[in-house]
């Protein structure tokens, strides 16, 4: 009995130690090394299973959700309808933006012309993490997807690719508390930084004209900067509260357009060479 308990305690001790060593190594090592390889291998083995099961249960899940919440099916239908409308409405707007962008770039004598080259992808199951502010998609480096690329859907910006294996990629959602984006208020042109705060509204830090009032309902869009890989003018959300303004900066709540808990088809923007200027280092904490 005594030896039994000793053996058990030794087992716990050894495994705790192994875990701590792994955590330390992973904490130090970051984006490279054997642990990273093991991780990519595990994902590439597991993701097809997830995709397969997803294909099977997606209709069943829809049915369960339908009886689970009254009128939820109708809501889903309305959401899909709205998505379709947004897609239709977004087409001319996107073309308009593209043209405007091309003109501006020509004016700036920039050689390259912005053309949104995108790859469509399906979100295949979130990673098993309770604090999950990243998702897995079914395209990877074989499809030309690389870390740093922006990810959109019909509503607006979804996030940014942080990691890509052959056939899959991980997307850090814009709502992740470790995500930050350069933005501007579409109505007023004020520049700012938009940070995710998980399931709460995003936080907009205004960096110029902090005294100027920002009306509630103002559109917040992405702002391209040199070396960044996020296209200009992608809608992110609307200002939801007047917020507090201080001497140097003002903080406002922004309600994102994208429903991060119900992601289906997304588009990865491949047009700009991936030169990610990380505003916040990622992957350190399950984000």
């Amino acid at each position, binding site marked *: 009995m005594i030896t039994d308990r000793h053996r058990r305690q030794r087992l716990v001790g050894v*495994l705790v130690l192994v875990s701590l060593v*792994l955590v330390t190594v*992973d904490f130090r090592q970051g984006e490279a090394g054997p642990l990273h390889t093991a991780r990519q291998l595990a994902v590439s083995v597991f993701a097809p*299973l997830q995709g397969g099961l997803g294909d099977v249960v997606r209709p069943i899940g829809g049915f369960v959700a339908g009886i689970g919440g009254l009128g939820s099916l109708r809501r889903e239908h309305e959401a899909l309808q709205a998505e379709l409308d947004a897609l239709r409405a977004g087409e001319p707007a996107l073309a308009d933006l593209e043209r405007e962008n091309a003109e501006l770039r020509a004016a700036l004598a920039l050689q390259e012309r912005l053309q949104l080259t995108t790859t469509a992808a399906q979100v295949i199951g979130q990673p098993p993490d*309770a604090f*999950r502010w990243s998702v897995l998609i079914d395209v990877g480096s074989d499809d030309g997807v690389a870390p740093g690329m922006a990810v959109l859907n019909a509503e607006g910006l979804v996030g940014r690719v942080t990691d890509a294996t052959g056939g899959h990629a991980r997307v850090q959602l814009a709502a992740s508390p470790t995500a930050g984006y350069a933005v501007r208020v579409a109505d007023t042109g004020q520049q700012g930084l938009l940070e995710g705060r998980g399931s709460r509204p995003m936080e907009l830090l205004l960096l110029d004209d902090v005294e100027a009032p920002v009306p509630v309902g103002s559109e917040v869009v992405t702002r391209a900067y040199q070396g960044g890989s996020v296209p200009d003018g992608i809608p992110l959300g609307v200002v939801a509260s007047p917020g507090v303004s201080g001497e140097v900066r003002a903080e406002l709540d922004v309600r994102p357009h994208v429903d991060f808990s119900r992601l289906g088809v997304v588009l990865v923007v491949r047009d700009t060479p991936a030169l990610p200027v990380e505003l916040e280092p990622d992957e*350190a*904490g399950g984000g």
Partner: protein
Amino acid sequence: VTRRVAVLGLVLVTALLLDTVVLVGLAVRGVSPSLVVLTVIAVALAGGPEPGVRYGFIAGLTTDLLAGGLLGLFALVHLLTGYLTGLLRPFLGDGGLLVQLGVGAAASAGNVALYGALTMVLAQQAVTWPMLLLVAVVVGLGNGLLAPFVLRAVTALLRRAGARRDR
């Protein structure tokens, strides 16, 4: 023994798949129950601390490899969950429905709270206190409700695997 290992592997893969594909659809504010944690609890209740620790470590490591967080964190938290739940076993009596509900909820809430707290320590801004509370409550309640099913299923599977091995 090999049959037991195979059964546990199958249980783990099934739980991971259901967690990531099916239960995500039932998420409340982005948080959904975790079957993997429940299987750790189930194994510990069925077999005691030692199987709980071993299975918890393997399940945690697999989860770590598939999740975006720090590698080894789930392994640590799950193995401790398996150990502590296993130690509780002698005090739980008949293991009736209420006991299963309670242990499933408490151990799951403790598990995610510990994971969240460790994440907070290691990567401060990724987790906030309200988020931690929300996750602990949602996972605790969800897992508590699922616990009787998972505990019974895993116990039955293990018993069958064990019996065939012996005779």
